[in-house]
């Protein structure tokens, strides 16, 4: 029995309030950011180790310090993005607002939603989260992609935005 899911009560309601992302999503965002940076930095790091035959100890330390700095920075950005993301479902549209310095507010009118996708990575599955992808007829590939929602919230959004009779193949 996974107690982490029952800790948080999903929103499940159409209202005018802005809702934050799931609390458990914070750690997920930060893990993902850290792992991504570490994986990316493996490439230049191995190149450096292989190429530098006569490197001094402090050069190695410098590279490691750089990688640590990058990881810390990425984790901080992930935390900030988790903190500053809110969403809202009201009678007209689904809204998502992101960021403070670079602010973006997306509005997907309910009457324009064509279909919805879920994506759940291994960490998301463990913590009961999901990434919601909303498609409209607009020119971008997808109108909205938002991670860090509780699975129950994501499913509720799908039920509300794409009623069962419009869905095909489910």
């Amino acid at each position: 029995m996974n107690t982490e899911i029952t800790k948080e009560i999903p929103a499940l309601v159409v209202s005018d309030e802005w809702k934050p992302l799931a609390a458990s999503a914070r750690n997920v965002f930060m893990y993902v950011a850290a792992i991504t940076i570490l994986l990316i930095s493996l490439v230049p790091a191995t190149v450096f180790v292989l190429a530098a035959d006569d490197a001094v100890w402090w050069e190695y330390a410098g590279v490691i310090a750089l990688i640590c700095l990058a990881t810390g920075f990425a984790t901080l950005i992930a935390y900030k993005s988790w903190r500053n993301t809110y969403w809202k479902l009201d009678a007209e549209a689904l809204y998502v607002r992101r960021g403070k310095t670079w602010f973006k507010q997306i509005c997907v009118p309910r009457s324009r939603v064509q279909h919805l996708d879920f994506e759940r990575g291994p960490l998301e599955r463990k913590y009961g989260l999901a990434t919601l992808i909303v498609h409209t007829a607009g020119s971008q590939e997808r109108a909205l992609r938002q991670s860090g929602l509780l699975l129950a919230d994501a499913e509720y959004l799908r039920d509300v935005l794409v009623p069962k009779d419009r869905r095909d193949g489910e």
Partner: protein
Amino acid sequence: MANETELADTAEAVAAVEKLQRLHPLSWLFVLVVQLRQFALPLIILLFTGRGDRYELFSLVGVLLLGIYSVFQYITYRYRVMDDELIVRSGVFQKSVRHIPFGKIQNVSITQNILQRLFNVAEVKLEAAGGSKPEAHMRVLGMRDARQLEELIRSHAAVIQITSDEKVSSANIPVSDNEILHQLSLPDVVKIGLINNRGMIVIGAAVGVMFQSAGDMMGKLMKSIFNMFFGWSGSLHLGTVAMVLGIIFLALFFLVLVRIFSVLLALLQYYGFSLSQLGRRLTVQSGLLSLVRSSLPLRRIQAYSLFEGWLHRRFARRSLKVDSAAGMAMNEENKSPLRDLVPLADPAKMDELIARFLASDQWPIRSWQNLHDDAWKREFLLPALLCTAITIAASIFYTYYAIVLLAAIPVLYLRAKVWSAHAAFACTEELIAVREGWISREWRFAEIGKLQGLSLREGILDRRFGMASLYLDTAGARPMASAFRIPYLPRAQADKLMAQLSAKISKSPLPF
């Protein structure tokens, strides 16, 4: 079921096409031609540089195999017209049967290149809404068959529209005659060529290809041209000034040549351009050697882009492009002409046409509103900072003369001022519009009901001025086009506008 009386005119056509049809007997030739075209340039270069007999043999074998395959493709392609759908059977190894309901077909395009004109055949493409690949692509049909098919689909679509849409059946639709809305005269086509300067692009591409495939040969050619020119001018003992003049003269000569070439290209594409309307469907037809003809239902138009460049202003003309949801068919040969709905027209005629397309009195817009008061500062700040940074970097690392780059700053200031004087937006009952530009002017607008999504963006610089930009998402926009957005609005106004638009959108149902 479709109204039999309405189909009385095309009853003949229906009877004629009801059996299973093959494509035109010469189809294999045209498929082969298309395949060859992709290999033509490398083949020619290969033949000229003559790398050896083995390669020539391979290419000949390749051509033979392609020929056999295209014959098979022709033999296995069959189609049949039913009451309300088209059945297509195709495939050499993997057979496929497709049922395409007429209601799904949004665009019928008939094209002919020179070779096809000679044999009186045409390619027919049937496109559905929102898809980028055509539902059916017939290469080739006899011209009569193609016209019959087009007429059949059009009459079916018109009937379906009438019987399914209550509002429409009570209105007065002119179904009788094709009404010609706009035609381009020869002077207009020449003007188009001078304005769009496509010759430059074609020559640039050709030069690029030549350099890629025959690099050292091109290098030797360039060197010999240079030596010839400078040797000649050197022998005249004219000195630096004359050489500079010579270069300028050569450049001007080249520019004139490119313009003439552009005019020729425009003639090829736009000669005999005619835009007509039948009921709620627009048809565009143009082309000198290759005839291209496409149709588009009015309600498929998603967004409009009206443009007036510097040369446009000299000629007192404007040009209109539209985004349509009937698929962005970027195929090997030609782009859909429905993007260039009205390539050139004088401003009054253009406004009349737009009002007609929109079927409302909302255009031309009278209630333009200004952007943020400090919009010019925001438009000036970023480029000015960039320019300063580049100047400083260049002066330190290259030469102190780079200081002269700072002369761009007053130009940027002028640009920002003129730009923000002209920049405005408008939100009327049915339309959302934005206009921009300093040397060229551009108007982008769309029916609010056609919007698919909104997003409000505020960057660091925007925050400093208290501004935000509102991005509008529509269907069918070109991926490379500039975004449809209202820039530099006061934040509060942007929020209000977003809420307003969202409310309006939710009142209008899905356009498709």
